[in-house]
């Protein structure tokens, strides 16, 4: 009887160990959920710009941004990563992670363990093409293929261009209740050296539902508000 008992326990333990080993192999940190930025979420030093970038006409850039907002174009990255809350969804297959935002946009898709597509055939987008891989507990996301559509200002100074290259490192902190994302931008025409900054997002409670922030280019009052001198009386 004792031998049988031992055999049963050993059999369960072996199958358990095998399952644990299998899970450990595929287990990755759980980034799933909704995340919010707080007042103290941003550590953003000033970037070191190239002379060409430093001399860019700021008035023209401001005008460009206002037009992008007025016409509800895709705002893109990095702007979207500074909106709050945002959702991270890790596909069950482990092949993709999506980042969903409350503003009207097609989201970010991070494809894991796959190369970027051929740059000759890829249509540049405001969020670029993102691929990711796990380095231990850190998700490293590499993004290229940006367009110049949307709100291109990079925190700390500089603009997203077609030449921009972004590497993000996502890492959970404090028992998974905080998420650190370290952004590194390189672009030889914009930055004299890689521009690095960090955001820390706070996990929202389970069951949270994100509302939608709409954008209507046909809203005449909205358009007048955005394009008129501040204080103009607009119904």
């Amino acid at each position: 009887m004792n031998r049988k008992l031992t055999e049963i326990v050993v059999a369960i333990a072996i199958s358990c160990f095998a399952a644990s080993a299998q899970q450990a192999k595929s287990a990755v940190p759980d980034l799933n959920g909704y995340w919010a930025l707080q007042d103290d979420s941003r550590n953003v030093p000033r970037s070191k710009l190239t002379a060409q970038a430093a001399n860019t006409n700021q008035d023209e850039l401001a005008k460009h941004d206002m037009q992008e907002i007025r016409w509800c174009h895709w705002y893109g990255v990095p702007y979207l990563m500074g909106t709050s809350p945002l959702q991270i969804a890790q596909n069950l297959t482990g092949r993709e992670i999506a980042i969903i935002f409350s503003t009207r946009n097609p989201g970010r898709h991070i494809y894991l363990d796959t190369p970027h597509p051929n740059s000759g055939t890829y249509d540049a987008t405001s969020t670029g093409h993102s691929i990711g891989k796990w380095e231990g507990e850190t998700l490293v996301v590499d993004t290229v293929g940006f367009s110049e559509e949307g709100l291109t200002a990079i925190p700390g100074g500089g603009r997203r261009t077609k030449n921009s290259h972004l590497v993000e490192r996502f890492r959970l902190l404090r028992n998974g209740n905080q998420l650190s994302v370290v952004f590194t931008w390189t672009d030889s025409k914009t930055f004299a050296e890689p521009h690095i900054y960090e955001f820390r997002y706070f996990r929202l409670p389970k069951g949270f539902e994100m509302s939608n922030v709409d954008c209507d280019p046909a809203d005449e009052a909205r358009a007048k508000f955005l394009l008129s001198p501040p204080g103009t009386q607009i119904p």
Partner: protein
Amino acid sequence: MLFESKTIVRSRHAAVALALLTCGTCSFAQSAASPADFSGSWERRDDVGGGSFGGILEKIIPKAVLKPEFIEANRREAARQQAGDVVAFSSKWCQTFHYPFFMQHSAAWHIVQTTDELIQIPEVHTFARHIYLDGRKHPDPAALVPNVNGHSIGKWQGNSLLVDTIGFVPGGGTPGGGRIGPATHLTETFTLLDAGKKLQVTFTWEDPSIFLKPHTYNFTYYKSAPDSYALEDYCHADEATQSGSVVEPKQQ
């Protein structure tokens, strides 16, 4: 002997229970796994010889059985289009698409699936649609904030996902001439076909203030190649206005 035997049995139960408890965490991921994997990129194709995306709709979507005022509204819209005004105001102005528009659009849409949610991510100008799978209920009507995709909850029935949606912002439309109001109720069934190469979605729209009987139809979507990736389908109303097709941003 009797005492010893009972002890052994009790010990065996305890040991097995302990082993199973220890194993519980490792098997959780498997037991929590969804019965079907809908993730990936999905797109419509012309598998009925419709010749165009609109042509496909005409061949596969039955006419909604509507109350007279909606039949009249559809007649007026058809007359306007017949007269050459073929682009809807909302399209000219790149206004947000209401569900289910992206489901019949030519652009692909994408599913990301977690244990708690199935998220549909369109490429066109609208919002991601969240289908909650964690057992939550719809919010109390007083707390429900309407939006263009409504509020959706899903549950598994075998390998199919049943989705129940309420809380739409009024103003949208369905294929077959149906309209969507604040009290419209949608039920959908998502089912994989052909070893996961196809996804069939059956839609049933109900709203006694609009439909005389439930409006049911289905679409079949094809899974994109594994190396495909999402695009952005941009809409620039400013370019439309510059080309002269839109002159005044006034609601019609």
